[in-house]
């Protein structure tokens, strides 16, 4: 599955770390962490149930073998999106550049997630295609799709639209 976007402003790692610091103990953001190595970043506290399969070496597709899309155990909207990116092999530096992490703008997101295709993909969503907001909000991916915190349904600021946001 394609995952819509990172984006815009304030998404530098530094900022994200600050936000993270306010919420409990922040997981580390290790650029060197291998996909599936939860403990590399989440060293303080186990993040998976005790009897969960060892994720070492798993890819996102492997995860989706059990956590099937559309099922009760689907991971959509449950993990900050960077996990999906990481497990698909999209690492920190691919979005934030090498050296001092750069803020990510929309151009970066749509370089993989072509906007027209994305809009088409959500065209059947009721009661409104979120990528066709009359208010132009689709121009800022990060309003809904967060990488380092849980994504949100920004439409719900004013509407009772029930979207689960990847």
């Amino acid at each position, binding site marked *: 599955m394609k995952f819509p976007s990172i984006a815009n*402003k*304030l998404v530098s790692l530094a*900022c994200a770390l600050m936000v993270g610091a306010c919420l409990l103990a922040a997981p580390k953001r290790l650029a060197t962490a291998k996909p599936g190595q939860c403990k590399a970043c989440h060293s303080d506290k186990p993040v998976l149930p005790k009897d969960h399969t060892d994720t070492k070496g798993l890819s996102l597709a492997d995860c989706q073998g059990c956590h099937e899309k559309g099922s009760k155990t689907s991971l959509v909207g449950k993990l900050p999106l960077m996990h999906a990116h990481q497990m698909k092999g999209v690492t920190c530096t691919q979005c934030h550049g090498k050296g001092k992490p750069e803020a990510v703008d929309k151009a970066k997101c749509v370089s993989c997630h072509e906007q027209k295709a994305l809009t088409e993909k959500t065209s059947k969503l*009721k*009661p*409104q295609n979120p990528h066709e907001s*009359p*208010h*132009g*909000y689709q121009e*800022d991916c990060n*309003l809904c799709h967060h990488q380092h915190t849980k994504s949100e349904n*920004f439409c719900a*600021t*004013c*509407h*009772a639209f029930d979207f689960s946001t990847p």
Partner: protein
Amino acid sequence: MSEKKTGLTRRGFLGTSGAAILGGAVLSQGVLNAAPGKATDQDALPRKWDETFDVVVVGSGFAALAAAIEAKKAGSSVAVLEKMKTAGGNSIINGGIFAVAGSPLQAKMGIKDSPELMAQDMIKAGLGLNHPDLVKLICEKSVEAFDWTVNELGMKFQEGEMVQEGGHTVQRSIKLPNSSGAGLVLPELAKLKSLGVEPRTQTLVTKIYRDKDGRVKGVQVREGYAFPKADSGKVKNIKARRAVVLAHGGFSQDVAYRMIQDPKLTAKFESTNQPGATSEMWREASRIGCNLIQGDWIQVGPWASPDEKGFGLAPHFAQEAAAMYGLWLNAKTGKRFVDELANRKVRADAIMMLMNKGENCIAFADSYGVSRLTKGIMDKLIQRGVVKKYDTLEDVASAYSMPLDAFKETIAKYNKNIREGVRDDVKNSVTLPKEVKPVETAPYYVSRLLPKVHHCMGGIYTNTAAQAMDVSTDKPIPSLYAAGESTGGVHGAVRLGSCAITDCIVMGRVAGQNAAKEKPWG
């Protein structure tokens, strides 16, 4: 006709306000160098300013963006400060109708109108609380504001369609593209971007610095502010070399503040506004000596629905189909209860009185009525369950437990008036749209009516140069301008629908132009 009722004659109107206009809208240097006001509470200026701009605009709705565009075009450096995550304020979810007196669209439809007639309508609904000089300026500049959206912003409008909101004696409200205020905000944002300015979102203004000499010299902000966490973000001081423009909007979502103004408007009343429509800047403007007037005139929109959150889409159906081409009914009696094209207060009050007695009201239109709506809106309304569709009048009556005979009789009576060209006895305050027809074409459509808190008519008292006036001296506060919903005295007791955009564009532009003309300090 309404001259008698309002006591407003063309001559009186021009007489009282002409002088103020001449010295106002286009600022003479004399006005710019207004005597310093006596500030009620001055602040020590910060030792160091983190950033400096010529003009600092607070807010990012219609008025703020118009002010920013004008100030930037006049050569000023401009910062636009928005506390929420997105630019556009409440304007970006506005209903998208724009009152213009004497527009080319009206001319093509053969509708006769004039700034004087629009002013008369505004003052009649406003119960004469409107400051006539401001009303006159806005109405006279409404065509210029429209031309600006076309020539400056490159907007295009659908011809042959016009909305009539309650209280307007003629059809003068132009539909914005995409049936939302976004249809104007997005072109404003694009224009501003082309000039090199982008709103700074998540930037809350926490203080306006008014110096001992009375002049406003900058603002304190929290950058990276996460609404509504008061202590979020990093404190910064921004110097305004020329002026500050306050275009921060209203407070419809701020229950505590609105109950101070109007105790009836408790938390049980939902609002059509975005959550950021709160009172911080109203309190701050008061603190530095602005004169906030008529704050207890808070508009409740009559056309909203309990079946969707906020403003939603129901107002389009209830107004542009049911009020214009159909009927509003008391479901308990099957009878009409108010002039469907009366002003918003008359209609909202009527609905709330009935609701307090346990009686509910509906907006009703036939297929012809809904055919007048902008394409696509009805599909969404039906699909969202906000408007329901019925094949027969019997089905409508049964769905809302409405007495069928009374309902049919109500429709028959209205249709007879329309068919015979007799002035309708209920919808009688205005000239009905020419396209009006008897309501008789199945299927039929209904939305439930629930008034929601919508607009603050009161606010900062300004003159026609958009200068904020000092509460102690009645003189302009040096280097402080205000426009849009943050200001008071334009709409009086009741704002007519679609006049907000006109007010915001006209006064926003005036504020921006004049702010850029102030002499820099320091």
